[in-house]
């Protein structure tokens, strides 16, 4: 009987020497994959509508994003129709300037491949989107993408 008891006493501790290595590995993975958002959202994070027939946006450097949604700052007014360009709340009239500014950052040959991604809240109005679309057409930014979540196909 005493033999068994002796064995129980000496439980060896789990060796955690490799733990930092594992954690570092994970850390490096996340450090590399992280992309920091360049712009601060001045509107509440838009609740994107969901759709099934979606295409991935390629060439991230050729994408400029327009946000539409509810302003975080109450004094800017309520409603889901505020437009954010860069990091300011703006109006649809400022869209052409925004696009032209974005064009200066890419080479001439790539301009036709530039895509405008519209991230709008579900409850925004089509009128706002149409205003943006008309302005985009004025400056010949014809490729647009309505940002959506991937929905389940039914």
């Amino acid at each position: 009987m005493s033999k068994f008891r002796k064995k129980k006493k000496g439980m060896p501790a789990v060796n955690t020497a490799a733990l930092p290595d594992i954690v570092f590995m994970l850390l490096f993975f996340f450090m590399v994959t992280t992309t920091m958002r360049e712009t601060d959202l001045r509107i509440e994070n838009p609740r994107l509508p969901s759709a099934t027939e979606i295409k991935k946006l390629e060439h991230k450097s050729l994408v400029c994003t327009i946000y539409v949604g509810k302003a975080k700052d109450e004094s800017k007014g309520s409603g889901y129709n505020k437009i954010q360009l860069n990091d300011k709340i703006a109006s649809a009239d400022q869209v052409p300037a925004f696009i032209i500014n974005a064009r200066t950052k890419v080479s001439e040959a790539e301009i036709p491949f530039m895509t405008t991604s519209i991230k709008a809240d579900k409850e925004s109005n089509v009128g706002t989107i149409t205003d943006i679309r008309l302005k985009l057409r004025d400056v010949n930014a014809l490729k647009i993408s309505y940002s959506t979540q991937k929905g389940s196909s039914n």
Partner: protein
Amino acid sequence: MARRENPEINAGSMADIAFLLLIFFLVTTTMNVDSGISKKLSEKPPADYVPPIIKEKNIFEVNINRNNELLVEDDRMDIKDLKEAAIKFIDNGGGTGNAGEDGSPGKECDYCQGDKSESSSDHPNKAIISVQSDRGTEYGTYIQVQNELLKAYTELRNRLSQQKYQITFDELEKAYDEAKKNAGMKDRVEDLRVKVEFIKTAYPQIISDAEPTS
């Protein structure tokens, strides 16, 4: 002087520091792949542009009012029925299609499986879907409608592709993309390109956005 034994640095808290950083990056990471419904806008028409006259039967009118209700071809409809209605319209094939670019006369749609009704569209390449929304329509509904219409096209393309090449259109496009990237499959690229182009021209996506009512 007596040489002291070099004391080892205590690395016990290294794991803690690493954990702290790890958690920070875990929280700030957003792994979103940007995706969405892509669309190409029409170019701005010149001032003296006269729109071509299109036969009423070749236009499939979808109206969305400010209460997010649908009116399709003057009938109320639920969103879930929209896809079927659109397929029926596009795939009708009641007449001849557009004339070819080289001036050859338009052909009948020999792959359509619709009713060939006189009062619906002539040919998939003449069938225009016009979406008219109100300024007050919710964006979510608008996207849902666009999605249903795109679904109709996808279904038709898949069907035709399955018939002709025994492979769905999605798979065909994927194979084409892969072949483009892969140097070893150069000989297949051209073949796949022709197939993809064929399906795309057989059922071109013609969805037009009418000026919204206010």
